[in-house]
Structures are given as structure tokens and as C-alpha cells.
């Protein structure tokens, strides 16, 4: 996330110097910061809960006590992260209005309703999450397991609905405008817009990859410290296998998404490929930046971009010169999109390599690898996956600029013109930093407690420690 924030800062400063509305810079900073924060939590709501159910299922089906303990502990982690996600998601809904009234006021009738659908899914998710988190001791084991299933399903639906709104900003459709106001909406065309399936599947797979590798990374780190028991091996396997299986699928889907962007969002594609001038036989430039409209410092692979986009070296690709000058993105913006794309793809390739390495080790030894270098790489895989996720998000968000809704609404026309957003942004940064740090500290404390005593104590707030079950019973209270 810091890289994303820094990157956005650079482009924002570049934009701000060009006589933009005064609130554009803080508004974009704030949106980038809070969304960049929230997107880290998303994989845990969407995919970590799935891992939790896998562990739970294994525990019930095979009587695997370690898997059961994992599921139980993961549900506590999920509870903390779900709360953080619920509130940071709420901030985003406020921000849509506070920062971008031009978007909501003019396009709320179309852009807004996917969020209403998301609201239903989120409602279900929150309700069943409570059943699952609080139902461990008093519901029958299988009934308890089944209360987790709607959580996983509705999280898929909720994430899809939010991505539908984002996809609509990239490829808006299904609206009829008259005198600057939406007069008719075709809901199916708004929701299932041109970019919907590509973006949604890409995002959901990313969520599974991030959650899987982060979980695997935690247990790989534990194994590096010598805790190579069944508990750690099971935790590692569940996370790693889910992520490793998803990575190749994601690379295939990512390739489809890139070609869809080539066909439907040529401006974004030009930025991704760092391509100032239209033409054929376009090289794929690895690294590099755009300075004064010229590509610098990149490593070009001849014809590669044309080959990837159209399967022939002669494929014509529109460059930045095909974009009308007033809405052409800045050099800095283009460079950020390009580099973020390279980082995303590079990180995914590294994760693919790690997955193949795992497959090889498993095939040779038929057990969880104990190879120190493999475990070290696996311990870092969660971070790498997160970097890839954030980079992909930068590609789609910064790559859309200067538009908020492509072809319809410029970001500078969407932003609020009232008040001063800097104090709000400052307060948000402080509070989010506190909450983020708090979440990490709380999770670390949980881990230490589990490592130290292995039982699941909980106690009365502000009071002495008492055993778990009696926490709510009257005799444990200090009058």
C-alpha cells in the first residue's frame, strides 16, 4: 500500500500543478488511501473465510483436531478483520458523497444501484458471520459449518457487485442521458457492463491468491522457527494449495483481461504498454518511464506487445497520440500505470514459480516441504501477493484517469468544490494508521497467546481473567 500511495501522490502532484480544482488532490489522495487500505481487507472477507471452512470441513469429516483448531482460530482472526472491513467499507460509502458529489449526483441512478445489491449481500454476510463466529459452542458442529457457507457465497456476490460499479466506470453503458441528467437506465446493462466479468473474476481470483499466500506465509514463518508440527503443516497446506492452484488460472484470466482492455479501453492499454505512438510491431517494454513523451530506461522485447494483443507482430496498437490532447494522461500517470502493471505481472510470475517449486517438492517427497529456502520464499509470498493486488488496482484506477466515468465524467468535474478536505484526509490517515497498527498488534497478541498456552481464553472486559464458558455467566462477574 505505501507504494500505491506514493505512486498516486506523484501523479496527483503532477495533475495538481495543471490548474485543477483545489480539492482534487486531497480527494484523490484520500480515496486512494482508504480504498488501498480496504482492498487489503477484502481478500480476508472473500477468501479467508473459505479457507476457514475448508479447515472446518476437514476437521469434521476426518476428525482432524488440528484442522478444527485452525478453523476456530481463523474465525477469530476473520472476526477482527471483518469488523475492520465493515467500518472501512462504510467510510468509502461516505466518501463517495463527500469527495465525489459530481459522480453521485449525476450518475447515482446508474452507478449507485450495484451498491444497493452489494448491501443485501453484505447484510447476509454480516448476519451469517455472527452465526459462525459466535456459534462454535452452542450449535451442532455441522449446523455451525453450514452457517459459514452463506458467508462465503455472499462475500462473492458483494465483491462482484462492488466491482460491477467499478467496471461501469471503465465501460459505462445502459443509460440514456438528456440535458445532463440520466432519464432512463437499463439495469442489466449497467451491472453486466462490458468490463464486468473480466474485472470481477480477476478480482475474486486475486482475493483467493492473497488470502491463501498470506495464510501460508504465516505458517511458513512458524515452520522456519522450528514449529513443524501437524498444526502448522495443515495451516500452511490449506492456504498454499488454494493459492497455488489459483495462480495459473489468474495468469490465464489476466491475459484475457489485458486483451479486453486492448479492445475496449485503448487509452488504458496505451498507458500499460508505455506506448506514446500508435503503430504495429509494438515491443513489450519491461520497466521504463515516459519522460517528455519519450520512453526511457525500458527493456524492449521486439514485437511482443503486438503479439500478445493480437497474436500477430503486425497487430496495430493505438498509442497515447490517439487520445485527444485535453484528456491525455500525463507522463507521470502513464509511467505509474505501466510500472504498476509490470510489478503486478512480475509478482504473479514469481508466485507461479513458487507454486511450481512446491509442486516439484511435493511430487518428490509427498509431504510439506521443509526446504529452508522454499519456506523463506513462502513466508514472503503473502506480501508479494498483496503488492500484486495493490499494483493491479493502481493499473485500473490510475489507468482510467483523467476520467472518473470514461468518456462521460472527468475526475475534476466529479470532485467536490466545497470546504477543505485536507484536515479530513489528515484525520483519516491518523485513524487508519492507528486502526491498521491496532489490528496487527491484536492479531500478534492472539498468535502469541495461542503459541504460549494453546487454549482459547477470553475474559470479562476490565476484569480478571476467567475461563471461556463462564465469561458470560453471572458468577464470574465482579460486582
Amino acid at each position, binding site marked *: 500500500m505505501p507504494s500505491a500511495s506514493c505512486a498516486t501522490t506523484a501523479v496527483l502532484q503532477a495533475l495538481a500543478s495543471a490548474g485543477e480544482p483545489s480539492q482534487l488532490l486531497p480527494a484523490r489522495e484520500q480515496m486512494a488511501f482508504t480504498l488501498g487500505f480496504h482492498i487489503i481487507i477484502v481478500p480476508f472477507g472473500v477468501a479467508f473465510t473459505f479457507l476457514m471452512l475448508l479447515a472446518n470441513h476437514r476437521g469434521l469429516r476426518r476428525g482432524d483436531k488440528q484442522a478444527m483448531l485452525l478453523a*476456530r482460530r481463523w*474465525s477469530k482472526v476473520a*472476526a*477482527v478483520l471483518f*469488523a*475492520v472491513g*465493515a467500518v472501512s467499507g*462504510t*467510510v468509502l*460509502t*461516505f466518501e463517495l*458523497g*463527500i469527495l465525489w*458529489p459530481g459522480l*453521485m*449526483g449525476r*450518475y*447515482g*441512478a446508474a452507478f*449507485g*444501484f450495484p*451498491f*444497493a*445489491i452489494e*448491501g*443485501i449481500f*453484505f*447484510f*447476509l454476510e*454480516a*448476519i451469517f458471520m455472527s*452465526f459462525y463466529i*459466535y*456459534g*462454535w*459452542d*452452542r450449535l451442532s458442529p455441522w449446523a455451525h459449518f453450514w452457517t459459514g457457507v452463506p458467508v462465503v457465497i455472499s462475500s462473492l456476490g458483494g465483491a462482484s457487485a462492488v466491482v460491477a460499479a467499478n467496471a461501469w466506470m471503465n465501460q459505462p453503458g445502459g443509460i440514456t442521458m438528456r440535458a445532463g441528467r*440520466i*432519464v*432512463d*437506465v437499463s*439495469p442489466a446493462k449497467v451491472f453486466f457492463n462490458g468490463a464486468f466479468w473480466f474485472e470481477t473474476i480477476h478480482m475474486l481470483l486475486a482475493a483467493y491468491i492473497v488470502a491463501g499466500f498470506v495464510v501460508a506465509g504465516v505458517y511458513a514463518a512458524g515452520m522456519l522457527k522450528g514449529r513443524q508440527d501437524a498444526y502448522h503443516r495443515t495451516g500452511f497446506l490449506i492456504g498454499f494449495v488454494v493459492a497455488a492452484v489459483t495462480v495459473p488460472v489468474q495468469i490465464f484470466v489476466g491475459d484475457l483481461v489485458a486483451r479486453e482492455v486492448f479492445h475496449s479501453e485503448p487509452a488504458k492499454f496505451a498507458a500499460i504498454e508505455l506506448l506514446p505512438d500508435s503503430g504495429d510491431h509494438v515491443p513489450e517494454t519491461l520497466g521504463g518511464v515516459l519522460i517528455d513523451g519519450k520512453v526511457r530506461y525500458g527493456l524492449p522485447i521486439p514485437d511482443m506487445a503486438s503479439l500478445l494483443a493480437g497474436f500477430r507482430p503486425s497487430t496495430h496498437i493505438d498509442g497515447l497520440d490517439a487520445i485527444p490532447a485535453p484528456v491525455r494522461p500525463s507522463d507521470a500517470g502513464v509511467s505509474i500505470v505501466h510500472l504498476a502493471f509490470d510489478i503486478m505481472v512480475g509478482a504473479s510470475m514469481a508466485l507461479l514459480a513458487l507454486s511450481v517449486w512446491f509442486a516439484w517438492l511435493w511430487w518428490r517427497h509427498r509431504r510439506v516441504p521443509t526446504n529452508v529456502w522454499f519456506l523463506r520464499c513462502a513466508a514472503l509470498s503473502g506480501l508479494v501477493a498483496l503488492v500484486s493486488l495493490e499494483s493491479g488496482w493502481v493499473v485500473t484506477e490510475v489507468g482510467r484517469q483523467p476520467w472518473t466515468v470514461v468518456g462521460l465524467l472527468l475526475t475534476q468535474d466529479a470532485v*467536490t468544490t*466545497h*470546504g477543505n478536505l485536507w484536515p*479530513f484526509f489528515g*484525520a483519516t490517515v491518523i485513524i*487508519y494508521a492507528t*486502526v491498521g497498527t491496532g489490528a496487527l498488534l*491484536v492479531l500478534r*497478541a492472539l498468535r502469541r*497467546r495461542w503459541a504460549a498456552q494453546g487454549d482459547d481464553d*477470553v475474559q470479562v*472486559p*476490565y*476484569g480478571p481473567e476467567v475461563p471461556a*464458558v463462564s465469561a*458470560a*455467566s453471572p458468577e464470574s462477574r465482579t*460486582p
Partner: protein
Amino acid sequence: MTDAIGVILFTGVIAYAVFGGADFGAGFWDLTAGGAVRGSAPRSLIDRSIGPVWEANHTWLIYCLVVLWTGFPPAFAAITTTLYIPLGLAALGIVLRGSGFAFRKVTLRTAQQRLTGVVFAVSSVLTPFCFGGIAGAVASGRVPSTGGGAPLSSWLNPTGVLGGVLAVVACAYLAAVFLSSAATHPYPDEALYLYFRRRALAAGIAVGIVCLAGVFVLHVDAPRLFHQLSTRGLALLIVSAAAGLAALATLRARRSRLPRSFASLAVATVIAGWGVAQYPYLLGTHMSLAQAAAPDSTLWVLVAVACTAAVLIAPSLAALYVLHERDRLTSSA
């Protein structure tokens, strides 16, 4: 059609005020529960009572926001560009409250719990004050149709402050009533019951006083709202007052469940009264529901969403409350 969406919106506002309000109010009692030892019992009851339900209850807020911005986009933009200060404060308050509560749940050291608990409790008071202020600003017609109204005086005025104070007191009242009932079941605790019963009675009287004061404030500061409330909304207000009195009476008579229903009814009818008094306007007398409404096709989507909510969410929520009530949701997590 627009009216139906207005009803759908206000249903969400009422649900949020009653269920979310009780959770906020629990934070108020958490804040005032005293030191670590003395406050231990009420705080553990608060944790147990709102733990499994607060996120679901919180979702009503999201529901209201999405219905407002999808159904009445220009009104939403007008509200956010005018009331960005209380909205921003409320948003940050929500972050602190939710995180504070969730963190306290899993921390063990008293010092950490005290810190996270204070964060949870303070933000539980700040947030409803802001929401009440926002309601006051909207109800007194201080949000211009094109937005960009006065950032401070639009809500920091007699009606806005009345709204804020009323919200805080009403939340505290609801919470005390709910908590007193929770103290009788499933683990009866006489001392704790009396503790919250006292507070519920006090808060109930405080709500009554604020409402009476409010009559004069509205008469001077928001004459149109006052007029509408005292004519079209009168029946609802009478129901509200009667329910409020009934809640106090049943509380005094030591009934455990009835006060909850009466208190909820009292709050719900006040909100409904506000809605009826505003009708057919969304903002003051300058923007009607119809003027702000999105095209019919969008409104139909909202109707479908509301029906889905009625079919899927209502039974799930009911199951959540029932299981919670029967103490089936008390895992150590």
C-alpha cells in the same frame, strides 16, 4: 413509485435508529460505567449483548445510504456537499467504534482493554450526535437543493443540536432498556438489572425533557417542521409519547420484555413522524421526493432490492436475534 422508495428509505432509517441506536447507546453506558473493577459487570453485559449483532445492525446505515444515493441522487449530493463535516466525523467515529469494540473483544490486558474500550465508547457518543445533527439540518430545510450549504451553521443550529442531543439521549435510553432486559435473561443478575433499570428510567425521563424542550426549539427555529409535526405528524407523536410512558410504566412494574417493545415503538414513531412531516419533500420545501428521484427503472431495482431484503434479510435477522436471545451465540470467539 417515488413514495414507495421514500417508505423503503425511511424503513431503513427507523431500523437503523432502533437497532443501531441501541448499539450506540450501549457505548454511552460503557463510557460511563466507571473504572475497571466497578465497570466490569455492565461492560461484560454490553459485550455479550451487542457482540453478535452490531455488524448486522450497522448494515442498516449502508442500506440507507445506498437507497438515498440510488433513489435520490441529487439530494444525496446536496446533503454530502453541505454536511460533509458531520458526515466525515461520523464516518471516522464509525471506524473507531467498530475497531475499538472488535479489538477489545480479543485483547486481554486491562490497559489495552481500557484504551480500546474508551475509543469504542467515545465514538459511540460522537457518531449519533453527528447523525442527529444531520437529521436536524435536513429536517429544518438547511440543505440547499444544489448543495454547498453552510458547512457549520447548517447543523450547528438549534434544530441540529436538538437532533444531536436527542439522538444521543434516545440511543442511551434504548440501550439501557435493552440491557436491563438482557440482564434478566439468560443469566439473571438482579444487581445488574437494577443498575440498567435505574439508568433506563433516568434516560427515559431525559428523552421526555429533551422532547418537550424540542417543541419550543422547533417552534422558533423550524416553524414549518413544527407546523407539520403538530398537524399531520401529531398522531404519530401521540403514539410515541404514549409508548414512551408505557415503557417507563412497564419498567417500573419490573416487566422484562415489554419495555423493549414500547421503547422501540416510541423511537420508531418519532422518526416516522419526522418522515410524515417532511412529506412530500426530501429537503426543506425546495426539493420534493419526485424532483430528486432517479428514473423509474432504477427505482424498480430498489423495489426489487427491498423485496429481496424482506425475503432474505428479515428471516436471517430474526434468526440471529432469536438465537442470540436463546444464548446460542456465546462462543468464546
